[in-house]
């Protein structure tokens, strides 16, 4: 059963990618669709940040990840390199977890 889910999921995800590159250009000139496509990454990335930081399964709460998010926010605001942002966030989260043990 897991294999069915894995293969169906893989097929569906690939077909969506292919559809994006293959849809007729007339779709692109629809201004509304262009607007949605332009705002979509902002909404999805922000939603992912929220979920990855505050959700544990289907529960919402605060834990050490909040510190990592704050550190990442500061590092991005200071325009530090990508790896520094990610490394500092992971490190600070691990440090807070370790000190709270």
């Amino acid at each position, binding site marked *: *059963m*897991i294999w*069915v*889910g*894995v*293969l*169906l*999921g*893989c097929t*569906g*995800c*690939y077909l*969506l*990618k*292919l559809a*994006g*590159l*293959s*849809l007729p250009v007339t*779709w*692109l000139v629809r*201004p509304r669709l262009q*607007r949605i496509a332009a*705002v*979509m*990454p*902002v*909404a*999805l*990335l*922000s*939603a992912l*940040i*929220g*979920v*990855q*930081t505050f959700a544990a*399964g*289907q529960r*919402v709460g605060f834990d050490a*990840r909040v510190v*990592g*998010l704050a550190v*990442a*926010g500061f*590092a*991005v605001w200071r325009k530090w*390199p*990508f*790896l520094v*942002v*990610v490394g*500092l*966030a*992971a490190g*600070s*989260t691990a*440090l807070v*977890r*370790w000190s709270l043990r």
Partner: protein
Amino acid sequence: MSTTEGASWPTTRRAVIRNAVGIGAATGAYAVSFGAISTAAGLSVVQTMVLSLLMFTGGSQFALVGVIAGGGNPLAGAAAAVMLGSRNALYGMRLAPLLDVRGWRRVAASHWVIDETTAMAIGPDDERTGRLGFYATGMSVFTLWNLGTAAGAVGAEALQDPSVLGLDAAAAAAFVALLGPRLRGREPWAVAGAAAIVAVVAVPLVPPGVPVLVAALVAVAAAYLPGRP
């Protein structure tokens, strides 16, 4: 990924490739946690590797594995993965004129249409830099994502709790780094704030993976607000 105005092509190319390798390394570290979480959720090492090789879109992979880990039906997991992967279709529509690929090239290039490659491709103002960003990032992320997945899946016992290393926070930080440059002006901030709130509020109400899709409605709503083209 800003390219300095008037910078020579070799300089620009070096900067793009350096950024691509950096993004690949970050997603590779993220993939280690994916590999470990996936095998801990009950998938075999081969199933975990198939996901990274063939699905190759991190959010969807985590969604599928998360649903299975939470006791959900694998088909529900596949549905969540596909819905989450729908953003790649939107990315593809934005990338199509830039990449301009046909036939087998399109079949191959499609596989690399993901968050990271799109961000690197549509960031720069000129097309040459954008195309290089797409392919360099695709190559780097695909390689390191799969190496990381293999390491995590095989070494799952050593890394049974990736949260000890803060890897769960690393994922959110990577998203912050991708989102940051897009937050110019009041509107993106409003969309970002609304989307995050909607997603977190939806977490207890809908299956794992779906809150992000609910938040996508914020983008649709924003596009229908008056006073905009």
